[in-house]
């Protein structure tokens, strides 16, 4: 357990400092753009930005993609098992996602408080009613994205570059196939029921109300599926 704790600490602490660099750059850029546009327009009214969480999603995506190679090498060199490496990486994803979701939730709500024109990602979909659900939803969204990209990187590492390209092409083909199936094969009734199911999973009930637990459960299920897939692959991953 002590070893695992050390691995988790390594993963979290070596990623932690980059969060603040990311936020410093993000807010500096927003401030700079606001100043440039404001000065050139001669007014700061109606100036601003929305959905800053999109930047975090890009950062989190990079973190998920890079979560594999360097850390896997470092930890396998130091005698850790794949199970521990996976646990440590997942812990890091949760740690970083938790902090960034917290910052984004607080910043989104504070900016909205002073500037009602600003809309955060969560509030744009579900409103400003519940700050805790806002954090939880963002946290799970970030973890899901991390797990998805971690899984993709593990697959690419496992099958190699050429096979990955073929898989990418096949995935693109599948998307086109699914669109065609929805458009030409499935009945309008079947499509409508699928859309209804999808909307429910995102919390939009048929009676027009919003159930905030459903999207949370959906994201948790997706994170678990991607995490399980990652574990299944990393168990057989060899150092290259």
């Amino acid at each position, binding site marked *: 357990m002590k*070893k695992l704790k050390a691995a988790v*600490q390594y993963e979290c602490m*070596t990623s932690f400092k980059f969060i603040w660099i990311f936020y410093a750059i993000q807010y500096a850029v927003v401030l700079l753009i606001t100043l440039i546009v404001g000065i050139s327009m001669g007014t700061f009214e109606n100036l601003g930005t929305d959905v800053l969480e999109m930047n975090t999603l890009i950062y989190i995506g990079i973190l998920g993609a890079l979560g594999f190679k360097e850390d896997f090498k*470092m930890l*396998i060199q*130091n005698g*850790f*098992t794949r*199970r521990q490496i996976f646990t440590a990486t997942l812990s890091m994803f949760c740690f970083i996602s938790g902090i960034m979701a917290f910052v984004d939730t607080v910043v989104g709500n504070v900016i909205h408080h002073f500037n009602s024109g600003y809309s955060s990602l969560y509030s744009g979909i579900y409103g400003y009613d519940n700050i805790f659900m806002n954090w939880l939803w963002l946290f799970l969204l970030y973890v899901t994205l991390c797990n998805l990209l971690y899984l993709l990187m593990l697959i690419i590492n496992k099958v190699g570059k050429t096979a990955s390209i073929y898989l990418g092409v096949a995935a693109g083909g599948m998307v086109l196939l699914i669109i065609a199936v929805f458009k030409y094969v499935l009945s309008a009734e079947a499509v409508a029921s699928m859309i209804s199911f999808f909307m429910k999973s995102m919390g939009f009930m048929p009676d027009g109300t919003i159930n905030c637990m459903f999207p949370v459960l959906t994201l948790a299920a997706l994170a678990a599926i991607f995490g399980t897939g990652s574990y299944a692959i990393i*168990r057989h991953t060899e150092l290259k």
Partner: protein
Amino acid sequence: MNAIQIKNVTKRYKNVAALHDVSFSFESGKIYGFLGRNGAGKSTLINIIANRIFADSGEILIDDLPAKENIKVHEKIFCMSEADLYDAGLKVKDLFKWINRFYDSFDLDKAFEIAGKFNLDTNKKFKALSKGYQSIFKLTVALSLMVPYVIFDEPVLGLDANHRELFYDLLLKDFQHNERTIIIATHLIEEVANIIEEVVLIDQGKVLLQDHVSTLMEMGYSIYGPAKEVDAYCADKNIIGYDELGNLKIAYVLGEKTPLPKNSNLSASAMNLQKLFVKLTEKGGI
């Protein structure tokens, strides 16, 4: 049993057999030379022992514990690898601190002391170090870990002669104070010939021999003289190689030395470990 036991290990890469049913043991408290040509299978076996890659079949036991995906062997073995597997963005001193957290048996003070002897700048990031100093960092870590089994894979890669001497000196001093199993995989056979007690020679994925250095030195000798006389003398012997120069011939023989014929023009001399290695791996077997 206190040993690294390699049992029927086979590993294939597509159509190439990197290791073919390899079985032998590294016993406790000895310094081994793990020798073999490029592509012989040394690094593959080391990586399997260190749980970095998996064997297709067979198993590795460390003190009777399976080495595959087993955290119980974490404090038993450390492998200093030729490849750079460390977080290149971290400073040397930070890497030391992390390794100190990873291993109970890591001696942080000793690591800084050894780094000082090598003039390794611990404030530099790993990626900013030269190839030689990256090797120094890696062997500093290995020397500072008090685990029962330490494997050095090409430990002196990129090191100058002074640093190589210092490394061998530190290794022997450490071994005198703390007897454990040290396995050195290297191409620089002559440099380690005086350090190692036992040799494991691997070629084309198979173990060619495993024996004490002294026994090998006694077993191997060369016969020099006119080609006809050399051939006659060697007729019933295990010849592992020849060198020819005009009518003169040198035969490299493995086995008990028999007296030279009277009035012959032959002369015999001992064979060094490097020559023995070269001739054995040229021949591809005993």
